[in-house]
């Protein structure tokens, strides 16, 4: 019995095409395809439409103008090419095609595929791991160079090294850098330098050339020898745009041999000015410190604690002076006071001296017993009295007493 129509499992054309589109575009988002170029149409829009074919199949392809501008060789019907791109499904026509973004002649394409395969393999092994990369010595004493002894690359490197850092010694192991045997020689030289172990850094490189010329640096043995080196290696192969597998396994990648030389040494002119600056900074730092200590010392010298004994002595001396002054002043005052008192007393004594009155012509009358007679009541007629005068005395008798009549 014929299978019943399972309406629920039936797809529309759009649905199945959508599935196909999704599956194809996901599975073939980045592929390399090799084949013969045919049916080439260069459209007026600048896009190229063509087929890739081999004996039993063909594949429609398009390379848009934006990408085909970078194709560096003449394309023609029937040539073997290798292209890179992605599969795209065009639902309105139910067709799929390859959208090409890179195109190489087949020979070069093979190299390219080999390159990609080795790159992938070594990357999987972790040989490009950034953690493997070793730092370069700041001031290498000896630099090993592995390159051709002839040609511009070695001259450029030596020029730069001697201009920037003549202090470093340079050892060259001359090798062939292209053609048969080049890879083995480069590998051997890396091993030899490692065995000698007298260089702190190695440069492996060569000047620019075609992909084939640079191929030795894409060989697995060279890439592995670089990765295995215990001495840090800088690769400098070709021009800025060239990338080799050696660049990925080297500790540092320089775009050119000259750049590699610049990378491995410091610039002695910069170093020189750095040294001079260092000297200035040191001088400033130390004189600043000495100044600060001197200030501290001076502050200590002037501190009250240190000055106190001196101050105390000075204060005592001053006090002594003051006391001396005071005692001098007070004794002088006392003397003066005494003197004036004395003078006063003298005058007083003088004034009280009865003799002084006698000098002025007065007389003192006293009884025989010496008592001074001040009133008529003290004497009677016939009493003997003594009259003292300034120059002696007389004795006489009272003849009459005449009390003063009170009116």
């Amino acid at each position, binding site marked *: 019995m014929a299978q019943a129509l399972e309406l629920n499992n039936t797809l529309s054309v759009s649905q199945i095409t959508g599935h196909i589109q999704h599956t194809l575009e996901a599975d073939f988002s980045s592929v390399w395809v090799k084949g013969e170029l045919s049916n080439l149409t260069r459209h007026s829009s600048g896009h190229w439409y063509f087929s890739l074919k081999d004996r039993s199949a063909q594949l429609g392809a398009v390379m848009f103008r934006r990408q085909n501008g970078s194709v560096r060789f003449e394309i023609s019907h029937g040539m073997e090419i290798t292209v890179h791109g992605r599969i795209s499904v065009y639902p309105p026509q139910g067709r799929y095609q390859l959208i090409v973004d890179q195109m190489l002649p087949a020979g070069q394409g093979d190299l390219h595929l080999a390159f990609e395969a080795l790159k992938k393999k070594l990357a999987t092994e972790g040989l490009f791991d950034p953690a493997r990369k070793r730092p370069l010595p700041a*001031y290498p004493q000896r630099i090993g160079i592995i390159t051709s002894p002839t040609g511009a690359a070695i001259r450029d490197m030596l020029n730069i090294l*001697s201009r920037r850092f003549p202090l470093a010694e340079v050892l060259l192991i001359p090798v062939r850098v292209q053609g048969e045997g080049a890879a083995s020689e480069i590998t051997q030289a890396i091993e030899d330098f490692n065995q000698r172990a007298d260089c702190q850094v190695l440069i492996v490189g060569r000047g620019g050339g075609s992909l084939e010329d640079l191929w030795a640096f894409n060989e697995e043995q060279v890439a592995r020898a670089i990765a295995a080196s215990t001495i840090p290696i800088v690769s400098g192969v070709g021009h800025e745009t060239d990338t080799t597998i050696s660049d990925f396994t080297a500790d540092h990648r320089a775009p050119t041999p000259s750049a590699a030389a610049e990378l491995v040494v410091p610039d002695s002119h910069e170093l020189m000015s750095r*040294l001079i600056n*260092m000297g200035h900074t040191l001088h400033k730092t130390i004189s600043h410190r000495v100044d600060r200590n001197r200030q501290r010392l001076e502050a200590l010298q002037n501190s009250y604690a240190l000055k106190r004994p001196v101050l105390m002595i000075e204060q005592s001396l001053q006090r002594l002076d003051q006391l001396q002054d005071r005692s001098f002043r007070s004794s002088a005052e006392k003397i003066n006071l005494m003197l004036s008192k004395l003078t006063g007393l003298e005058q007083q004594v003088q004034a009280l001296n009865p003799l002084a009155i006698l000098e002025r012509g007065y007389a003192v009358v006293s009884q025989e017993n010496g008592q001074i007679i001040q009133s008529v009541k003290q004497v009677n007629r016939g009493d003997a009295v003594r009259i003292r005068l300034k120059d002696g005395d007389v004795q006489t008798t009272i003849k009459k007493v005449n009390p003063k009549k009170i009116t």
Partner: protein
Amino acid sequence: MSEKEKTFEVLMGELETLVARLESEDLNLDDAIQHNEAALKLIKLCRKRLDTARQKIDKLVQNSAGEWQKQPLD
């Protein structure tokens, strides 16, 4: 190792250490002055080395016995 035998890298390393210590200021004055003198001496030495350096360039070749020999690069 005497100063003369030391590589430029060793001298620069010593200099950088001295300067870093001087700048950290945890030294007493005596040590600071000593460090400073040593650093200035090293600076002088490094400058002299840079000033008088003439690059030595040799090519390494192996003789028949497999021994390495240095040859001037022509």
